[in-house]
């Protein structure tokens, strides 16, 4: 099947404006601005079943419909922070198919009557930001951005904004604080961004992949999109496959594709033909799925089915862990990440990740006792439900499921 998002793999040079245009580019945006009311655009997206690709899976059209029309101006912000360990899809989209992404930002902006939109990129995407700046300039030149677009009174400006190395800035309210020139710490919610966002104004924040779907949904219709994937998870998804597989990379597949197809048909199977021991479907924030039965691999990858395995699909960053990996090592890695990335605003997360990292290090070094493993589990469970943002919660997922589902790996390395 031809790609819907990673179209640069089928169409050479689609990153060039004339090539993108020749392949239908900007027709959806032009049609929306000249022939549709903003609410009609939102309705198409709502009916397509598109859900956010940043992790939470929130229905995109519904989010857009929450924009507060009593408070102005409105903003759209594209979340290109992409910092979840195991996630590398947004980068490929922006590098390979930048105009489809930017057209998605433009359509979203029209749908919520925003005249300014920002693309927030993680600081490491420094070269990519320069590249997008060039693409934005080309769009201005060609009349797809700027004042009185297509002879209407709708105007739109796009800008990039670079972060500077902080995973927490992927959380949408921390991201908004960061654009405002502050430390990237999450806000207390509610209010949510559609009523109180950038500069306190109504703002829609969407992931890069989410927005890149939008031009083709408008061009081909809601039904076309809805017919792909599963009833609960419409459309296609880019699965970032990493870890112990022969061919790691991005694979764009319909929702509902099985883990087996992703790992074996596309990913070439496990390195050295070893067995899959565990899968993390949502990067380092995942629960560890125990693969003790081959049948687990036949689970379809959609939001509802993955939940039956005691995990969330999240950003669909599938990390494959083979039988040679011990979970005490793995959990030490994930906890180290979250300890480093905790923004420090709330106590359970700041202190909890600190204590967990001490314990995982002791356990991994072989200095711990069985009681330390129990204590680690208690600390993690104590944190759950008490943190200001989801990062705190994320930090406990691999710990709790690691100990509960792979207890042997921990008991093996502790002192008697």
């Amino acid at each position, binding site marked *: 099947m031809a790609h819907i998002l990673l179209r640069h793999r089928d169409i050479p040079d689609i990153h060039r404006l004339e090539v993108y245009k020749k392949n239908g580019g900007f027709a959806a945006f032009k049609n929306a601005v000249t022939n549709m009311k903003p609410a009609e655009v939102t309705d198409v997206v709502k009916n397509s079943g598109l859900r956010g690709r940043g992790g939470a899976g929130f229905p995109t059209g519904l989010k857009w419909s929450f924009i507060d029309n009593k408070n102005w101006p409105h903003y759209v912000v594209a979340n290109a922070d*992409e*910092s*979840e*360990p*195991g*996630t*590398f899809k*947004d*980068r490929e989209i922006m590098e390979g198919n930048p105009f489809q992404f930017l057209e998605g930002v433009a359509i979203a902006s029209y749908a919520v009557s925003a005249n300014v939109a920002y693309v927030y990129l*993680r*600081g*490491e*995407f*420094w*070269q990519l930001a*320069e590249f997008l700046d060039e693409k934005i300039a080309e769009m201005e030149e060609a009349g797809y951005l700027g004042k009185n677009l297509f002879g209407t009174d709708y105007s739109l400006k796009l*800008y990039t*904004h*670079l*972060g*500077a*190395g*902080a*995973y927490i800035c992927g959380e949408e309210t921390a991201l908004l604080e*960061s*654009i*405002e*020139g*502050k*430390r*990237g710490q999450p806000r207390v919610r509610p209010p949510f961004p559609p009523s109180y966002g950038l*500069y306190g104004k109504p703002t829609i924040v969407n992931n890069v992949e989410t927005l890149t779907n939008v031009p083709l949904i408008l061009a081909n219709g809601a039904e076309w999109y809805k017919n792909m994937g599963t009833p609960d998870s419409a459309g296609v998804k880019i699965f*970032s*496959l*990493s*870890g*112990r597989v022969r061919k*790691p*990379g*991005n694979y764009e597949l319909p929702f509902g594709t099985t883990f087996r197809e992703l790992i074996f048909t596309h990913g070439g199977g496990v390195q050295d033909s070893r067995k899959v021991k565990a899968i993390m479907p949502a*990067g*380092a924030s995942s629960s560890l799925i125990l693969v003790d039965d081959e049948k687990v691999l036949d689970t379809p990858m959609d939001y509802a089915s993955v939940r039956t395995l005691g995990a969330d699909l999240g950003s669909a960053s599938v*990390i*494959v*862990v083979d039988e040679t*990996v011990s979970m005490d090592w*793995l959990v030490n*890695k*994930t906890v180290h*990440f979250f300890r*480093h*990335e905790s*923004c420090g605003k709330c106590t359970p997360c700041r202190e909890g990740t600190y204590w967990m990292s001490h314990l995982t290090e002791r356990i991994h070094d072989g200095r711990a006792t069985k009681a330390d493993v129990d204590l680690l589990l208690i600390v993690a469970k104590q944190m759950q439900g008490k943190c200001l943002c989801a990062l705190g919660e994320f930090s406990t997922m691999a710990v709790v499921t690691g100990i509960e589902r792979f207890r042997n790996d921990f008991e093996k390395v502790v002192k008697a």
Partner: protein
Amino acid sequence: MSLATKYPKEVKQILSKYPPEHKRSAVMPLLYLAQREEGYLTKTAMQEVAKIVDITETDVAAIVGFYTLYHDKKEGKYRMQVCTDLPCALRGADQFMENLCANLGIKVGETTEDGLITLEAVMCLAACDKAPVFQTQGPDGIKYHENMTVDRTMELIAALKNAGGEAK
């Protein structure tokens, strides 16, 4: 020379991205600009950025302290930031780092004797399918180096050195 006199065009362009009443938003891009030449932020540079966007020096220092890509100390001319996060570690990143340290004769966090390279271990860089991977942060910005070997890394370092990379 001050930032505003040295880079008038850049400063103006950065400020134009944000509503005039929210020029504080320009603080991050201005800090990148100020850091460009020396590789770190001097106290004077931070004071100046504070003045341009009309916030206190303490506010600027808090931002510099919060984000890992801003630096308030002079280190090597290039920071070599190797990803050792979980997905890369599953593909040999820790071993790569160890071999690189042995070749450079330094530990993680240290700088080579000639002042060219500071070696750092960092979190996921969104290139997990291309491990081992690192970035170089230096005068010419931030660049990716993917699917690396120790040999190719040593060649890159030699090239940086020849390109006038020797630190003063």
